[in-house]
C-alpha cells in the first residue's frame, strides 16, 4: 500500500511543512472560487514580480533623464521632476509603488514555492537565484531612497556607513569604496546612482539564471492582472503622492534623527534603534545564508518523514512507452530525454516505436506533469500510483 494512502508526515518540520502545503492549497481553492483558474493571481506571483520589475525599468529610465547626481543638484532635480515636469510626480510615484509591489510579489512567490516544496531537489537552482533577486531588490530599493538626497537619505547614508564600518577587516575599505574618499562628496552620489542602476541591470542576469532550467516559465501574468497592477500603481501615485512626505534637502549642517519609515526597504535601519550596527549586519548575513540553505536543510527529511509530500522520481514503464515525446515537451525541468528505442514496446501502441523516454533522476522534481501528459500510462510516480489516485478519488466521491 502506498504512502499516499497511509503515510503521515512525522517530525516537527515535516508536520509544519505539510500543514503549510495544505493551507496554501486551500487558499488556492478559495481564490479559484473568486477567479477563473487561469486568472488566479497566486499562480502568477513570479509573473507579477516580473511585471513590477518591467514597470520599474520603464519609469526608472524616465526618471534617469532628469536626475542630476551631485550633492548640490540631486534634491533640486528630483523636486523639478516632481513639480514641474508634466506627470513627473506620477512617474516617480509609479516607480516608488512598483518597487513595493516588486518586493511583495517576490515575497509571495518565495513563500508559495517554499510552502509547496517547489524549492526541493532539482528546483534549488531557481530558489538560490531567487534569494539573490530578493537581496539585490532590497539593496536597490535602499539606494533609491538615497538618490533623493534629502535628510532621510543623509541619515540613511550615515547609518549604512556605520554598518559597513562594523564589518571586521573589510569595513574601512568598503566604506571608502562606497563614499568614494574620506567624506561624502559629489562622487558619493555618482556611486549611489551606479549602485542603484548596476544591480538593477544584474537583476535580469539573475532572472536568466532563475529561468534557465525551466522549459515553460510563466513570466507574465494574465492581461487582467497587468491592467490591475499597473492601474493600482498609477492610482496610488495619484492618490497618495510621494510629495506627501515633505522632507527637507540634506545639508551639511543638518543632523536628522528621524525619517518616515518604509517597511519593505528600510527595516534594517529601524533595527539600528535597538541593535548595534554589527549585529544588524550579522543578522542580515544570517538571514541571507539561512535562505540559501533552506533547500538543503529540507533534504534532511527522509522520504518517510515527507509523507504525502514525497512522490518519488518519475519512472517510465518501458512496455507502454510509444516514444510520442509528449512528456518530453511537457516536462518543465528538461528531466525527460528521448533516446533511440532498443526494441519495440509491449503494448499495441508501442509496438512500432523508434524512441523511448528516459527520466534524468537528478532533474526530476516529482511534479507529476509527465503523468498527465502521457496518454499511454507509460509514466508513474512510484509513491503516487495512478490506481491509488483513482481509488482515493472514488472514496472521496462516495464519502
Amino acid at each position, binding site marked *: 500500500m502506498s504512502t499516499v494512502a497511509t503515510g503521515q508526515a512525522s517530525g516537527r518540520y515535516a508536520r509544519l511543512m505539510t500543514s503549510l502545503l495544505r493551507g496554501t492549497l486551500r487558499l488556492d481553492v478559495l481564490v479559484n472560487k473568486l*477567479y477563473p483558474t487561469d486568472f488566479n493571481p497566486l499562480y502568477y506571483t513570479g509573473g507579477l514580480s516580473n511585471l513590477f520589475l518591467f514597470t520599474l525599468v520603464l519609469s526608472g529610465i524616465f526618471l534617469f533623464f532628469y536626475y542630476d547626481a551631485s550633492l548640490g543638484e540631486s534634491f533640486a532635480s528630483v523636486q523639478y521632476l516632481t513639480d514641474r515636469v508634466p506627470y513627473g*510626480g506620477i512617474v516617480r510615484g509609479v516607480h516608488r509603488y512598483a518597487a513595493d509591489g516588486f518586493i511583495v510579489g517576490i515575497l509571495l512567490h518565495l513563500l508559495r514555492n517554499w510552502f509547496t516544496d517547489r524549492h526541493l531537489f532539482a528546483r534549488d537552482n531557481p530558489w538560490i537565484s531567487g534569494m539573490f533577486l530578493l537581496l539585490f531588490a532590497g539593496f536597490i530599493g535602499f539606494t533609491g531612497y538615497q538618490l533623493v538626497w534629502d535628510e532621510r537619505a543623509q541619515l540613511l547614508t550615515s547609518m549604512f556607513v556605520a554598518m559597513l564600518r562594523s564589518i571586521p577587516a573589510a569595513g574601512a575599505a568598503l566604506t571608502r569604496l562606497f563614499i568614494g574618499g574620506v567624506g561624502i562628496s559629489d562622487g558619493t552620489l555618482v556611486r549611489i546612482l551606479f549602485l542603484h542602476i548596476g544591480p538593477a541591470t544584474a537583476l535580469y542576469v539573475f532572472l536568466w539564471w532563475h529561468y534557465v532550467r525551466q522549459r515553460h516559465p510563466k513570466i507574465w501574468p494574465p492581461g487582467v*492582472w497587468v*491592467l*490591475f497592477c499597473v492601474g493600482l500603481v*498609477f*492610482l496610488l*501615485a495619484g492618490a497618495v*503622492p510621494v510629495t506627501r512626505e515633505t522632507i527637507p534637502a540634506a545639508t551639511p549642517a543638518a543632523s536628522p534623527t528621524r525619517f518616515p519609515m518604509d517597511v519593505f526597504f528600510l527595516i534594517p535601519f529601524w533595527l539600528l534603534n535597538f541593535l548595534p550596527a554589527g549585529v544588524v549586519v550579522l543578522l542580515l548575513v544570517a538571514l541571507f545564508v539561512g535562505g540559501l540553505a533552506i533547500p538543503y536543510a529540507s533534504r534532511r527529511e527522509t522520504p518517510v518523514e515527507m509523507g504525502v509530500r514525497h512522490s518519488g522520481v518519475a519512472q517510465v514503464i518501458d512496455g507502454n512507452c510509444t516514444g510520442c515525446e509528449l512528456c518530453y515537451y511537457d516536462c518543465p525541468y528538461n528531466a525527460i530525454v528521448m533516446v533511440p528505442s532498443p526494441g519495440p514496446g509491449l503494448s499495441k501502441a508501442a509496438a512500432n516505436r523508434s524512441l523511448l523516454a528516459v527520466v534524468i533522476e537528478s532533474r526530476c522534481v516529482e511534479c507529476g506533469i509527465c503523468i498527465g501528459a502521457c496518454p499511454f500510462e507509460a509514466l508513474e510516480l512510484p509513491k503516487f500510483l495512478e490506481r491509488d489516485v483513482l481509488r482515493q478519488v472514488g472514496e472521496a466521491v462516495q464519502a
Partner: protein
Amino acid sequence: MRSIYVVGIVVLSGLSLLFAVGIIYGEATDQWFLGGGFVGALLIAYSFIVLLLRQVGLIGPRKTER
C-alpha cells in the same frame, strides 16, 4: 448570475467614461496627480471589465483549458 455580470460590465463602463473625463480634466487644469490617478482608476476598471467578460464567457478560457 449572468445578468449581474452584465450589469457590472455596464456600470464599470460608465465609471470608465467618468475616469476618462477625469483624465482630460486633470490634463486641462494641469493637475497631473489627479490625471495620473484617474489613469490608474481607468485601468483598474478595465481589469474588472475583462474579469466580468471572462465570467460571462465572452472571452477566454485559454485554448488548453477548453
